[in-house]
């Protein structure tokens, strides 16, 4: 079973934050979803290997040739904040309160 603290921990890993009331609602829904997931406990998989992808393709290579894709202008076209041809972000540190 998943509890409220675990849901809050997972939210941190996923870089999401929830208000108290959202956390309560999400915990309930996550409990229901994990109860559904726990149905797999009933399956005896024996020596079955995990199937991560269904193609029989292995190590697909292509020629390593240089190619022009987008221009700098195109690459920056959708950047929400930019300055002098660079992406602008806030400081990593929080005015002395952040951890190094």
């Amino acid at each position, binding site marked *: 079973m998943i509890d409220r603290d675990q849901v809050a921990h997972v939210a941190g890993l996923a870089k999401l934050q929830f208000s108290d009331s959202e956390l309560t609602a999400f915990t309930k829904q996550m409990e229901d979803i994990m109860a559904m997931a726990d149905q797999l406990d009933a399956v005896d998989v024996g020596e*079955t290997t*995990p199937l991560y*992808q269904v193609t029989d393709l292995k190590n697909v290579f292509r020629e390593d040739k240089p190619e022009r894709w987008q221009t700098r202008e195109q690459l920056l076209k*959708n950047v929400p904040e930019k300055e002098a041809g660079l992406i602008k972000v806030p400081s990593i540190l*929080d005015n002395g309160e952040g951890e190094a």
Partner: protein
Amino acid sequence: MSTNYFKEDISTLHDALVNKQTTAVQLTADTLAQIHAKEDKTKAFITVTDDEAKKQAAAADAAGISADQPLAGVPLALKDNIITDGVLTTAASKILTGFIPVYDATVTKRLKAAGSVLVGKTNLDEFAMGSSTENSYYGPTHNAWDLDRVPGGSSGGSAAAVAAGEVVAALGSDTGGSIRQPAAFNGIFGIKPTYGRVSRWGLIAFGSSLDQIGVLSRRVKDSALILQQIAGQDENDDTSLPDPVPDYVAAMAGGVQGMRLALPEEYLGEGVSQGVRDAIEKAVDTLKKLGATVDTVSLPHTKYAVPTYYLIASSEASSNLQRFDGIRYGYRAQDVKNLEDVYVRTRSEGFGDEVKRRIMLGTFSLSAGFYDAYFNKAAKVRHLIQDDFTKVFADHDLIIAPTTPTPAFKIGEKVDDPVTMYMNDILTIPANLAGIPAASVPAGLVDGLPVGLQLMAKPLGESTIFKAAAAFEDATKFYEQVPTAMKGEN
């Protein structure tokens, strides 16, 4: 001439274009007029590309439309998780607000190369996560048979646009049923090809081992024509299959005489409504009369498909959606304290609840201490599900089943109950887990709402699906019906 998509198909449009009874410019103007007239009812589109479409149509006319270009000058719509150079692409998410791609998806490029005209981007559940198109930042789409009902999802916009006669066909994507379920709910044809048959380059990723682009259309042949253009290996997608693309239209001929069909007992279980069962029984009779044999078979791990799928798809999604951080494109939260705050606030404000649930489920399933119990266990059960199919296909050409347990449900009916919503996908998910091609073909009405017959084939068995679907379509002619909410329109 005013184009009536309840009567036309791509071949009749193509003939009219080649014989100069119409032009691409005229056809596009008609199509845009249809869309604008019907959008009040369906809300199938997020973006209608009027100007872009008119330019493409003029270019198609200028280039000339010859008999060997079946899609030239034909207006088509794309699901809005398929990227389009210079045209807003949102995946129905707030987090992609204002995102204008700077290149085309491979399918977009191939349709443009075939001369088709892109008239717009259709609504979907945010990032294709959902079964009703209610999880869209742009609001729900409405079912053309009953405007109070969902069109299904996640390709609900593409399905409603085709069913309502706004376009002749549209592309969708299918990770757990997102083409077939809305096709069934809207009384049209929809095909999810074999995993890897169509390049995923430029499809906004959800579950990368499951995602596949496909087609929704009123007529089977139109999907065959479009799949012909978009299928095939692509050096930008290493999972695209190198196998040559057969002639799907030619494959439609011949009928189901002697075809060995399998009907899995698990697909007619207790969750399946009586109306759907009756419709499928009738479809089975039709196929038998056409000369097919039908055996009852078992796919014993079907009941585990839903949890298996939600663990795998959500795990892959939680990884794929890490890229949405407010730095390079789309929405960025304002009044932030530091860089970490940009990530957390952008994602918390930019994603809807269903997307957050999937990211949370996926992050949890992949996290230390839970990976073996959840993600890896699901991957093993996935193997058992694939083995079930392999056994049945050893001596059958196709598996037939209902596409959905019930016809379309009401808007708002299930949106607050994720697990009930997830169970709605139980009949479509297994094909994605196994990577096999599957389609939904209309199988009549139950209480005025369409029901879909699902056809599943072994990997690269699209030709067999088209053959059976064409024979069934020819025998039942469901396409002659105009959706209830669209009566009196053309």
